[in-house]
């Protein structure tokens, strides 16, 4: 997406450096401050963080919070495992289910295609939160580790529409002739998709995948209403347990939050460039 830098008659005169500087500072402060607070707070002791009035900075930064937190009563390791299993499982499932559907819808006209696309669009309007009670009724019998399976299914199902929508736009952008050449050369449909089309639309797939992963990683409502056993709760649900009635371990809460955020931010920074194209590929044309 390289934009040619040329002197165009007046419409793109270089912006004033003051505007740039002020705007940049405003953006960094506005979008950075909660996470800065999160980081600073994760380095305090419990005494420091519940001090009245609170101090801005810890006397000495307690990096060992990041080690001791694992031994705390809330057991963040099991929550992290739950979150990781659910997010990875949902992402894989979406990849398996959405890719063929998106490929087929992008490549062929068939009766019922519009109905299918409409159905997919409709699920975009529904989210686990609106259907939480129904999901509870459906999955309340899934106890033990089965609840993770339920959450994988739920996260996959509710992210499916977005993934299909993005992927089919990317598949549609690859000329049909490339596929046809492969078919004539004797590849099957499935192989054509895997060996010819997929490598070409890989960026689009990655965008869709990261989306599904991040959404599942951060999902709250369904997990909140379904997971009863504390040792099976994902991070989003288990974290408030650091705030007991008498003891409030804010510092551990933020330590875990930092640990949970870092992988996602790194993932996002990888696809940042593609976000702009990928997001609207299906919708804005």
């Amino acid at each position, binding site marked *: 997406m390289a934009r040619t830098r040329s002197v165009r008659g007046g*419409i793109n005169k270089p912006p004033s450096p003051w505007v740039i500087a002020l705007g940049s500072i405003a953006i960094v402060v506005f979008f950075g401050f909660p996470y800065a607070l999160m980081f600073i707070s994760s380095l305090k002791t419990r005494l420091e963080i519940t001090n009245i009035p609170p101090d801005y900075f810890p006397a000495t930064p307690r990096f060992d919070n990041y080690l001791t937190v694992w031994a705390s009563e809330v057991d963040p390791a099991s929550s992290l495992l739950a979150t990781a299993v659910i997010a990875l499982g949902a992402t894989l499932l979406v990849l398996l289910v959405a890719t063929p559907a998106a490929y087929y819808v992008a490549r062929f006209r068939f009766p019922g295609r519009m109905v299918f696309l409409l159905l997919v669009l409709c699920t975009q*309007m529904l989210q686990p939160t609106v*259907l939480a009670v129904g999901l509870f009724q*459906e999955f309340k019998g899934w106890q033990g580790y089965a609840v993770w399976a339920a959450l994988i299914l739920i996260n996959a199902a509710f992210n499916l529409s977005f993934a299909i929508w993005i992927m089919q736009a990317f598949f549609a952008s690859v000329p049909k002739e490339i596929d046809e050449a492969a078919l004539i050369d004797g590849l099957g449909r499935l192989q054509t998709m895997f060996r010819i089309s997929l490598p070409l639309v890989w960026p689009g797939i990655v965008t869709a995948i990261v989306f599904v992963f991040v959404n599942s990683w951060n999902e709250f409502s369904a997990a909140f209403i379904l997971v009863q056993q504390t040792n099976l709760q994902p991070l989003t649900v288990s974290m408030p347990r650091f705030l007991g009635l008498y003891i409030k371990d804010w510092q551990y809460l933020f330590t875990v939050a930092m640990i949970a955020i870092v992988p996602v931010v790194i993932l996002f920074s990888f696809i940042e460039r593609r976000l702009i194209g990928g997001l609207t590929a299906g919708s804005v044309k």
Partner: protein
Amino acid sequence: MSLTATPSMVRDSTRRRKRSGTHAVLTALPWLVPTLVLILGVVLYPAALMIYTSFFKYNNRGIQRGDAPVGLDNYIGTAGALTFPGVPVGRILLNTVLWVAVVVLITVVLSLALAQFLNLEFRGRKALRLFVILPWACSVVMTATVFRYGLQENVGLFNRLLVDTGILQRAQAWTKDPTSAFWVAVFVAIYVSLPFTTYTILAGLQAVPDDVREAAHVDGADGLRRYWFIVLPLLRPAIAVAALINIINVFNSLPILRLLQETPGYHTGHITTTLMFEYQRALGPGVSSALSVLNFIFCLVIIAIYLAIVQPTKEVA
């Protein structure tokens, strides 16, 4: 794959199309079945189940009471979703409309400005965009939790900062009062909605061809007019999509209000979605299903009104 019809084939083409149509559907099925199964099983089935549940009595532990359907009792009965004593229903409905309208409107306006700025060409633009992504990447739960901590009356650092800078006389318990907690939640909801909206509009901006703006410039339009009459109309589809997805998300954003409102029970800071969870805990699946159904209809009505006003599919002239 496709049948090319020659004039001589036209007569029996309808029958032929019907037969080849069934064939086409059968070939398509294996590719689409997994998707259909997932959508039917995990989206449509629980939706139907929810509607069904809303016509039966349950206790708060989720155990059914009696086999006979109870009609609209869960909706408007003595302890129904809309008529439960002590629940300020009118206020909560108003809150819901306010919540969606205020959050989406301010988000879109701020995003327009942000996208315009991030579309400028300068060094460090890429790093700056990463900052804008932060609230999107960090889960809503974590972001809301930071604000909850920062706004605590005694230990909250945002409170201390507000007092130290002289903006506030003394620290406030923002999250303990339903009304102030509601507006804090509005702020946080806008905050976490900005990245997605900004990125969608940014995508729209990059699709605005330079020569169109250039032509307007040659015709003597100044910057503001170029923006208002040329850029904004071309951004219409992007804005429409961003706003629609925002409406859906904001309507469903449970954790923000849930975490920022520390008042228990049926208070005046609820929206229908948070009330639904309160019912689920206190009254069981019957009444909460009833409210969920109403909530969903409410959401559809808001989307319908939005679509009627904005008409996102309308072609830009």
